[in-house]
């Protein structure tokens, strides 16, 4: 306990009175050393989240969205993973420079994570009440009895019916949606300031997905938490996000507020994605398909990583890596929060 008090004391003075973003990721690079060479999973990612805000990180498998989240949480497998460059500022402090002990105080208490697959994330041989109570026992030093009472309270919070009766049940006795609620309860147990949800509803049916997303949004409002929602589902993003970062081959290719980005995408990849999904409310003709495949991360194409699949690609795209340009309206006024990593973002936006 004494260690905890000491690290908290170190943390608090700077945390108080800090009014920058809650989390600020700067120029983050992550690579994995494998037998086939170095896989560059994240190549210079920048994003920030304010308290009470929802940032959606959108991308296909292999785009680096989950690896970024793991780096923030400090649960990246190192080795083979390595963070050669970058900063992850949480309330103004770089977490990458902290000691393991300091990070452990943040993990779970200040930043918590919800995983995709609730069944494999929960321990099958321990009751859910025990696993939920562990948060309180380990972090707050509560007794077994008090922790269990808190666990029941938390299960009520996430609307698990008959929480008191089910606290001693095991994960396999719950349905998929209920298990995901337990994951949410665990993440929220210590009222963290930031939640990272990695594909929280991908394994669920649509009706249950709607329940879970509603619950998450409600709790987020109540606690005024920052939320990073990692997903590949453009529909879910449109429903809940405030702003979006679209990732491709380890870089953010476009970011912006959700309404503007959907209305008028500024990167050919985003545009292609939006055009390639069938719509529920209209019967379309043939779907637009982005040709080709996502790149192999050990051999990312030179220049813009999207160039082999891009309909607008020109010579400059094969040689120069496009920076994330801030976007402006045709009359020169700045579009707040919008940026695109495309040499031809103007042409993309205007048609």
């Amino acid at each position: 306990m004494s260690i905890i008090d000491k690290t908290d004391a170190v943390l608090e003075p700077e945390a108080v009175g800090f009014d920058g973003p809650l989390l600020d990721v700067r120029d983050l690079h992550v690579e994995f050393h494998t037998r086939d060479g170095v896989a560059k999973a994240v190549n210079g990612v920048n994003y920030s989240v304010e308290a009470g805000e929802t940032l959606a990180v959108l991308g296909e498998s292999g785009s680096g969205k989950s690896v970024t989240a793991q780096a923030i949480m400090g649960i990246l497998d190192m080795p083979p993973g390595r963070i050669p460059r970058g900063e992850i500022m949480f309330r103004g402090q770089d977490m990458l420079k902290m000691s393991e002990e300091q990070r452990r105080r943040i993990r779970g208490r200040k930043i918590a994570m919800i995983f995709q697959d609730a069944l494999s994330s929960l321990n099958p041989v321990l009751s859910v009440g025990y696993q939920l109570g562990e948060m309180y026992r380990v972090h707050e030093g509560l007794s077994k009895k008090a922790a269990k009472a808190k666990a029941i309270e938390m299960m009520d919070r996430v609307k698990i019916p008959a929480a008191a009766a089910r606290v001693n049940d095991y994960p396999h006795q719950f349905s998929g949606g209920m298990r995901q609620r337990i994951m949410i309860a665990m993440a929220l147990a210590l009222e963290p300031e930031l939640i990272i949800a990695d594909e929280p509803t991908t394994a669920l049916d649509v009706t249950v997905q709607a329940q879970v997303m509603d619950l998450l949004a409600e709790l987020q409002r109540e606690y005024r938490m920052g939320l990073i929602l990692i997903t590949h589902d453009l529909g879910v993003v449109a429903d809940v996000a405030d702003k979006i970062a679209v990732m491709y081959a380890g870089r953010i290719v476009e970011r912006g507020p959700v309404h503007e980005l959907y209305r008028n995408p500024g990167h050919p990849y985003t545009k292609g994605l939006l055009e390639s999904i069938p719509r529920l409310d209209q019967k379309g003709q043939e779907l637009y398909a982005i040709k080709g495949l996502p790149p192999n991360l050990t051999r990312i194409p030179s220049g813009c990583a999207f160039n082999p699949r891009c309909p607008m690609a020109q010579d400059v795209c094969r040689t120069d890596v496009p920076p994330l340009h801030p976007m402006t309206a045709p009359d020169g006024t700045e579009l707040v929060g919008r940026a695109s990593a495309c040499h031809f973002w103007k042409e993309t936006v205007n048609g």
Partner: protein
Amino acid sequence: MAELSKNDEQGDTTPNVSEVEVVEARTEAEEVAALEAPVERGEPILQVRNLVKHFPLTQGILFKKSVGAVKAVDGISFDLYQGETLGIVGESGCGKSTVAKLLMNLERATAGEIFYKGQDITKLSGRALKAVRRNIQMVFQDPYTSLNPRMTVGDIIGEPFEIHPEVAPKGDRRKKVQDLLDVVGLNPEYINRYPHQFSGGQRQRIGIARGLALNPEIIICDEPVSALDVSVQAQVINLMEGLQDEFNLSYLFIAHDLSIVRHISDRVGVMYLGKMAEIGTDTQIYDHPTHPYTQALLSAVPVPDPAAREHRERIILTGDVPSPANPPSGCRFRTRCWKAQDKCAEEVPLLAVPERFKNSDTPAAHESACHFAEEKDVVHAA
């Protein structure tokens, strides 16, 4: 196959074959010949009637006794027309994959009939069943586990020819496999590669090529794109649509993604807990749903349009799907339905055009299994 059956008939008429054998051989040959006959476009090619599949629940190790049954599919009927795509949607556990297995004859139906060109395939065996199986093929959900990692692509796609050698004589097979690879948009030179050398989308193309190998008439697709990335999904969907036109295929397309089902299907059936809740054309189901479950399901789908989120009405169902081992009495949806009344607990609603829409010409006049069916547009923002 057509040639084979002709030979059989000639053989039958030779005088030195005993009488009894002639009769037997002819009926089998006729059965096979009947299956070879083409079906006109727009005619039903597959008719499912009151199909039931119960999986027994047993207790005890040495002396197993039956203590109930999981009613995975509990009396569903539908037609699949030649050249169309019938989409089947529903939550996990509603029995959609069991329907696929029953149609493939991979599971024996507990009761009910499946007529393929007028023949009940649940009763077939031997040569006649083999002939039917040639014409009904399947594409599986997971392209990572449905391809044998120790076989080359050429062996995987060519394997159906081992079982049905009449489709491609031995010398032709390699050429045939390369043609198939070309058809599904893969380089024919990849014939000697192994599945792990391909990406998810490419593997699904291999699965599709295998399904096409025997020139089937019906392809049953069980969640064929749900394991794929968004940008690759569109490629595979477009490929499947192209193949349907090219080879005049009928698809039974099972998926949980309602947007994709709308895109590809001509007609859509909505399943809930082993029963068909509603069936109709895609416009009837998506724009004019009358069953409360369909309405709830559609309203829960996230629409990729942030402008819609403020004024779209969401019907959020409470609770989970009940266990199919012990389904609710009467209407199975009543435990989660906001319209449920006493009648719903007592009477099972039949899948029929609701009384109130019977004589009208509106798109709401399609089959719906609800006592209180009424139209409600939940997809389009008000």
